[in-house]
């Protein structure tokens, strides 16, 4: 299998996101007949043979990097990741409807509304992992912000005074609530998407279309609904 990984041709390579989306992705793949038991196990491997295709597992935010470079032919990741990395060209083929979440602006409970804060001070300090999305959101509204890029547990930033608020992804909102934060504005909503490399989309078109069609059928509703 390892020899096959670097050769053009051979089985399609699908970038599978580890983390919150993983379970749902594997369930989807199971339902179209791809062998996922090994990925579910506690193996330290990063590469798995799923029968008709090879699964390469990685962080969701690395999926556009691998797929745009052609190191993986296809991939699954969140729309939030695709928007944040919109300069990495990939074909976005199917809305899989999995892992629904919202990108929000949140501040501490009891704080004045961000818009009020803005009006008084003319400027806000916002901590985020999603610099591009946050930048575009505030720029569109003509609001001045200073973005502080942090890598993990963004909820911490406003609690200790690093920032006035955060732009982050929420699914259930539990982490926010437990850290005394509340949603003030909703920026966008996101679900998992099937993406394809631009060259694979052409050269391996029959296999790519076949996989996309099967996933589309499994996903409830017609393509494009979420």
């Amino acid at each position: 299998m390892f020899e096959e990984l670097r050769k053009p041709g051979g089985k399609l390579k699908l970038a599978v996101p580890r983390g919150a989306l993983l379970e749902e992705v594997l369930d989807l793949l199971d339902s179209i007949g791809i062998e996922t038991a090994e990925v579910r196990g506690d193996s330290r491997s990063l590469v798995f043979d799923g029968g008709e295709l090879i699964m390469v597992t990685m962080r969701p935010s690395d999926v556009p990097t691998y797929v745009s470079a052609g190191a993986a032919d296809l991939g699954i990741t969140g729309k939030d990741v695709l928007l944040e990395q919109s300069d990495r060209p990939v074909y976005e083929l199917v809305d899989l409807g999995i892992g629904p979440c919202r990108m929000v602006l949140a501040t501490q409970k009891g704080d004045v509304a961000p818009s009020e804060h803005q009006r008084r001070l003319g400027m806000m300090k916002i901590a985020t992992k999603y610099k591009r999305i946050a930048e575009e959101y505030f720029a569109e509204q003509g609001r001045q912000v200073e973005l502080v890029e942090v890598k993990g547990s963004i909820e911490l930033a406003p609690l200790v005074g690093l920032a006035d608020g955060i732009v982050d992804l929420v699914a259930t909102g539990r982490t926010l609530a437990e850290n005394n934060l509340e949603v003030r504005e909703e920026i966008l909503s996101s679900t998992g998407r099937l993406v394809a490399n631009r060259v694979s989309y052409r050269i391996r078109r029959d296999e790519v279309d076949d996989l996309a069609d099967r996933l589309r059928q499994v996903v409830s509703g017609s393509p494009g609904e979420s």
Partner: protein
Amino acid sequence: MIRPIPPGTRDVLPDEMRELRAIQSALLGTFENAGFREVRTPTLEYADALEMADRRSADSAYRFFDERGEMLALRTDMTIPIARLVADRYRDLDPPHRLSYFANAYRAVTPQRGELREFGQAGIELIGVPGPEGTAEVVELLDRSLSAVGLDQAVIGLGEDGLWTALLQDSGAGPETIERSSELLVSHDLVGVERSLRESDELDETAIAQATRLIQLRGGIGILEEARSFGGTGFAEVLDRLTQNFEAISARSLNREVLLDLGMLREIGYYSGSTIEVYDDAVGDVIGGGGRYDDLMNRFGMDLPAAGFTLYIERIHKAQLERGRDV
């Protein structure tokens, strides 16, 4: 201590240099045999002159003032400088003009993406031969050029600018919907395209189904049959143009099949009519591109149809190396 060079530029050492030279002589030889003669234009041009062609395409990342305060720019491709050259130097000569080049061009890069700030391009411009025959000549030479550098597996994709707009117009979409969905299509967001059509509320279900199907159609002559039932007279006219181009290309003996791609929409602003992209699955990126730009010469005051292609030298080289691993 190491003295760095700017990100996106590189030193080429002798072994690689020899391989790049081999690509150069194979390509220039192929161009020459087909009657395309090499020209060179200055690396630096007046920014104004480049922008006459197309503001966005010519938007050089590297501009500065000369000793008289004129703004100079590093070229972003060779097509615009050659259009300028032909318009000014070939004014009294009868077309067609067949020219080729092997030169560096310059673009801005995103750090740490392996993008090149300075990159090599080899290509041809066929100026003064219109429609199907001109396009077919360009594609035939592209086919031979790819074979000359050993890329027999590379695929030529052929699209037609205007298909998308025509289908949407026939379906009753307004200018805003057309613009919004075109932007999404250029960024390859097919999920977003469908959503934008639905949200506009201007298209019925049949029209949406046709539009989302159209942009996924890529393959041989068979896909034209399916597309023929789409849209109205406006769309049929553009599709006829593509069919004629494809037939003219098919009449020539090529080393590879040409892949029709009805969803191809290129970002470069001066294209009109046929669009061309080149793929090799050893490289995850497009290794070349081109098409028709029948309005470009007009912007330099000369009314001539034109078409051409360019190959990205570093990616051609990479494809050769990846293929070499196979044997």
